């Protein structure tokens, strides 16, 4: 019989602390967010990027925060296998010569980030791109992509699933590792 074990990786309080730490790290490397823009990845990365941006607003004058949302659906490499329905991309500023910090909840195979880099270049040529993730499933990568800011790195099997629950959407807030 299969064992459907559930293990909590981060609790609600831990997520809050981790988000604070990551926001400070981003601020440390991009003082006052000068020439820096924040891009959350649609759809689930937005919950995480919203939190980071709220924290950054406490550290930096909100007028200097440029926050956009990027959808990567049309840039995916698995178009012939699965149909994905697109979400809205909203980048109301220029990214040419800017430092871009991409935010997503979970980094797994690296394919989403590869597509995100592709999508990003349709908007211009940034001077630098960094990646910030809440969970890094290390040793599972299929592309040479690593995060610059990482909430928690975990070791997982391919058969396992990482579920991120957000209060706004899922009524509870935590990150769980599911066996299947």
């Amino acid at each position, binding site marked *: 019989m299969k064992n459907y074990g559930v293990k909590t990786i981060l609790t609600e309080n831990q997520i809050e602390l981790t988000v604070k730490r990551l926001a400070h790290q981003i601020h440390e490397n991009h003082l006052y967010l000068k020439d820096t823009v924040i891009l959350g990845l649609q759809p689930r990365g937005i919950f995480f990027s919203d939190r980071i941006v709220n924290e950054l607003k406490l550290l930096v004058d909100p007028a200097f925060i440029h926050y956009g949302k990027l959808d990567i659906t*049309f840039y995916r490499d698995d178009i012939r296998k699965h*149909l994905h329905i697109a979400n809205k991309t909203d980048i109301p500023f220029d990214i040419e010569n800017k430092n871009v910090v991409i935010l997503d909840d979970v980094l797994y195979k690296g394919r989403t980030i590869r597509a995100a880099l592709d999508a990003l270049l*349709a908007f211009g040529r940034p001077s630098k791109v960094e990646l910030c993730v809440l969970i890094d499933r290390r040793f599972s990568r299929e592309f040479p992509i690593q995060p610059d800011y990482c909430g928690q790195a975990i070791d997982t099997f391919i058969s396992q699933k990482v579920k991120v629950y957000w209060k706004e959407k899922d009524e509870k807030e935590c990150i769980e590792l599911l066996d299947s």
Partner: protein
Amino acid sequence: MKLSTKNLLGIKDLQKEDIETILSTATQFKDVLQRPVKKVPSLRDVTILNLFYENSTRTRISFELAEKRLSADTINFTVSGSSAAKGETLLDTVNNILSMKVDMVVMRHSASGAPHFLAKHIPAAIVNAGDGINEHPTQALLDAFSMLEKFGSLKGLKVAIIGDIMHSRVALSDIYLLTKMGAEIVVAGPPTLIPKYITEALGVRVEYNVKKALQWCDVANVLRIQLERQNQPLFSSLREYSLAYGINRRLLESLGKEITIMHPGPINRGVELDSDVADGPSSIILHQVENGVAVRMAVLYLLANREN
């Protein structure tokens, strides 16, 4: 979320959810078309054949542009200059082209049902770009998209379709689509150009007085007189048609309300629509053309996905 059909042969076969998926995907593609790089790699390994057995300007350019914006490989077939002129059948032509590994076929034909026939015989996904007097589904989708953009919702929207209802595939596709989405429809035109049982068959109201139809509606979709499909005289002259059913600025001003004017093109200026209306502030005709590319991108994107 997948479409319930593997081909787009007509709006008749689509569910309401399919239409909503296509229109919402088109919104995202319209956004792509505003970017500095207007191209996405979604259909990079997909080959599309544009099979046009009938003349076309807008639809053919629009489809080809949509395919190129999606990074698909395209082949264009027009009947003049091909072996169809030597007597090759439709099925033979297509099978020969398909043996060169084509994934999708965009097809226009003067015979109603030609794409349905092809869909039964070949495995490629087929998009109907207009078949005879039957349907023109992507035109109806782009009409709906343009109305949605202007009014926010199709439910309860009052749409008058004016002109040659009998021979117009746009009219039929529009009626199917708008009915499914909850709009109210009136068709207007000379009695000889409106099918006799249209109310019983499609549930639309008929109005023979164009001014009354215009007074009632929010949007008027004005259609071209399809002289090439009329094999007997159905009205005395174009001049008389224009006097009784043509729309000009004076007529619009006499309504005492603002309405939106649409036309699927090509316009016969001075017949169904005067230039001062076609180019005037109430016309969204060029928006329709612009939206056509985004809508066709959505259709091709959604149909190109096959799990096997």
